[in-house]
């Protein structure tokens, strides 16, 4: 169960591969469910040039750590990894990576989804967007995870 905050761009696939090679026991996991959230260059009809992700140092880590423990008690998972960007972000950069390793796909999928929904609704991060004309605005509300 690992969580990390990065203040610079990261390659989610490289981070994931590296973590898997060093921390996950080969041959034991059958299912790996991954979610990557990436910054888009548009939001609510406007072009977005850049974004700053503010967070609450200390509480963020505590929240994410408690969340991974909660998921591990609810589902049969072997390990999980959450990586989240903070600071200045450009379009097409990864914002969040959530990975769950399990023996069973249902557990991997559902734990992953749970981690993302909780993170979106409750982890203390805030996005401020810089639009094409350099005006800035706080993102008011995350979308729900409903269809």
């Amino acid at each position, binding site marked *: 169960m690992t969580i990390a905050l990065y203040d610079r761009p990261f390659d989610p696939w490289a981070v994931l591969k590296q973590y898997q090679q060093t921390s996950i026991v080969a041959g034991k996991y059958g299912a790996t469910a991954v979610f990557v959230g990436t910054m888009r260059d548009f939001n609510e009809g406007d072009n977005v040039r850049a974004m700053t992700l*503010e967070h609450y140092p200390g509480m963020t880590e505590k929240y994410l750590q408690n969340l991974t423990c909660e998921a591990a008690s609810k589902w049969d998972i072997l390990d999980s990894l959450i990586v989240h960007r903070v600071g200045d972000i450009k379009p097409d950069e990864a914002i969040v990576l959530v990975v769950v390793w399990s023996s069973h796909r249902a557990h991997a999928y559902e734990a992953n989804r749970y981690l*993302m929904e909780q993170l979106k609704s409750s982890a*203390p991060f805030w*996005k401020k967007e810089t639009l094409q004309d350099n005006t800035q605005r706080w993102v*008011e509300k995350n979308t729900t995870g409903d269809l």
Partner: protein
Amino acid sequence: MSIDVKFFASLREKTGKDSTRIEAASVNTVADVWQYCVSEAMPSNTLTAVNMEYVPVDHAVKDGDEVAFFPPVTGG
């Protein structure tokens, strides 16, 4: 008693406050801390935490607590 108070994101900008320490005898709850620090009413969607755990606004505060106010979160 002594309480560390933090404001984040749009609430930090609106209140013009970042992080501050208050020394106040008349403060019993999280809502009292806001009132002590900010003249305007607390926006209804404000989230509140004490010692980095979410709590309701009527949560009691004690000496040495860290109390935080922030808008709805938008991570992920």
